[in-house]
């Protein structure tokens, strides 16, 4: 949350006393075990896996029971998918005190999956090819209320907004500012937040706030635009 905790930006968090509680939601037990082994060494990573779930029902009950900081959410789940979990946990996401944040972790990087869960309220989207340390980094960042974009996700977002250039003036909220666009572009090129900051001569915090703004706009952008976007890609 604050700039004073250097560990959060670096992600490995070895020196910090901070701990983040995490619930794993994935229908593959093997994968859960793998992630658990990768990030679950609490002393090293600062991540404390407090629960696991294999389908939507379980997920909702486990999340309600444990109230973790972050939920690692698979997109494809029996019982309605990640979007359904997001829908049913909407109240916990918006809680003023210790809100539950969602980080989508999926093998799919299809546009409809990505945009679907982001619009459902997930604060980030990473694919399962991510390394353990990057994942820990992402978890901490999401826990702090920031957004995590993979390059691919940034590409989708750019694409979505690029195709709707020159919208009417009153839709300011739906448009990306020049700066946000630059930030996204660099992320799409594979830059880490730190590198983006260096490139644009701004602070990492500013980069994060830009990315969060993009996320907010993506959730709020009017249906008309997204429908058009989806239709142009034959998603609907």
């Amino acid at each position, binding site marked *: 949350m604050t700039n004073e905790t250097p560990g959060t930006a670096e992600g490995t968090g070895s020196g910090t006393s901070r701990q983040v509680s995490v619930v794993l939601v994935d229908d593959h037990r093997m994968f859960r075990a793998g992630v658990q082994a990768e990030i679950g060494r609490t002393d090293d990573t600062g991540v404390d896996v407090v629960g696991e779930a294999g389908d939507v029902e379980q997920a909702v009950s486990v999340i309600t029971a444990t109230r973790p900081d972050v939920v690692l959410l698979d997109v494809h789940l029996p019982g309605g998918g990640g979007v359904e979990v997001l829908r049913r946990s909407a109240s916990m996401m918006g809680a003023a005190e210790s809100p539950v944040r969602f980080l989508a972790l999926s093998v799919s990087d299809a546009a409809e999956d990505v945009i679907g869960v982001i619009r459902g309220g997930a604060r980030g989207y990473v694919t399962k090819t991510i390394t353990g340390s990057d994942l820990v980094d992402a978890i901490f960042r999401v826990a702090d209320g920031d957004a995590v974009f993979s390059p691919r996700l940034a590409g989708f977002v750019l694409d979505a907004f690029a195709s709707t250039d020159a919208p009417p003036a009153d839709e300011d909220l739906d448009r990306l500012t020049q700066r946000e666009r630059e930030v996204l572009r660099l992320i799409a090129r*594979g830059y880490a937040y730190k590198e983006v900051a260096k490139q644009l001569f701004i602070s990492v915090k500013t980069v994060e706030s830009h990315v969060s703004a993009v996320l907010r706009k993506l959730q709020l952008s009017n249906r008309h635009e997204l429908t058009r976007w989806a239709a142009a890609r034959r998603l609907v």
Partner: protein
Amino acid sequence: MTPASSTAGGVGSAGAAGSGPPADDAAPPPPLRKLYRSAEGRMLGGVARGLAGHLGLPVSWVRIVFIALTVTQGLGVLLYAAFWFVVPLGTGGVGSGRQVTAAGPAADVGSAPRSRRQGESTWPRLRLRKPDKGQLFAVLALLVGAVVIADNWQFGRVNTYLWPVLLIGLGVVLVWRQADDARRAHWAEVSRRRGLVPLARSAAGVVLVAVGVSGIVVVQGSARHLGPVLQAALAVLVGVALLAGPYLVRMMQDLSEERLMRIRAQERAEVAAHVHDSVLHTLTLIQRSADDPREVARLARAQERELRNWLYKPRGRAKDEDEKPQTVSESVKATAAEVEDHHGVPIEVVCVGDCPLDEGLDAQIQAAREAMVNAAKYGVPGGATPAGGHGAGAVQVFTEVEGRTVFISVRDRGPGFDPDAVPEDRMGVRESIIGRMRRHGGTARLRSASGEGTEVELEMERAAQS
């Protein structure tokens, strides 16, 4: 269906035994000539035309035979009706493949049905105009025939049945014809008659039949009982509907459910086949080369990409995989895939926007390819060692089409190098990337810092057209 059509075929060939078959044995080899009713250019049910096609005779002959049979004994009508009932509608037509030299209109039909599928839109209109004269003539002949019969059958009370029966027949013909048309439209996937016409036709048929039936009742002199009879008939009909209704509904539901299941099963079979063909084979290969991590990574990457394409690409496009890509993003993806396969280094591609290729963009993609190869060779931490399989070590390619500008960036996180320190005789970067871009009016920028990897940025304006 099968027994019916086979008997019909039997009748047809039996009839033909006297006149036709031996002469045509040398004809092109239509292996199994099945009897169909002709869907095009028909007058009633297409029976005569279909028969003519089957027997290799001009249509008019067949029609004349039918008319003659009708006039003499009334047998023709029965025969015609029987054929109509049992023979399926199809593309049989007159002479499938053979040339009948004698009859003009028949001859041109002979060759047409083969090429029908494509020319469907223009063809039928032509057909409906052209044989009008012949049809009119035939209808006239039929009418005359009917009048003759009517005149001949002067035996008392029977005559009074004639008109109702004719009406019923006409109504039945109308309805059947309509049903045929509906099937034909379904079968040709174009419904040319739209809206009210088919409905009106069916209704007219039903009305005609109803009038005919009532006529018989009236003729029998029981006009006074018409009301009660109609009521009773209605009651029986409603009763039957009530009894049979649930069964019919259930049958329809069962049918549609069955169809759904079949579609699902097909889909599943397709997935299974694909998984078997590609995924299982790859897994087998991976097991076999388990001690060569580089090869394993390469196989896994290639398979992942292929499966992704198959799963997430819109249907229909995946089939054209082999064709040369037509747009920038496709081309970049294909190039990256090639390099990835060749060097066994994962390349992550992100594309924003798209546009068709032109000459300059082609050059740009060639330059990008060179950059990707360089990145794959030198840019991945650990280089050629197997450790390079990590996500962080991936080469990243970003393509953006914005307005008239196409921007491609190729980036790795390798050790980096000093561009100025590259010896003069090394042509890779200087010629293949920078030189090529400059020659085609684009720009290339190279950014490299020790420890932070290398990034090549390529920018090119699109051609004025397109």
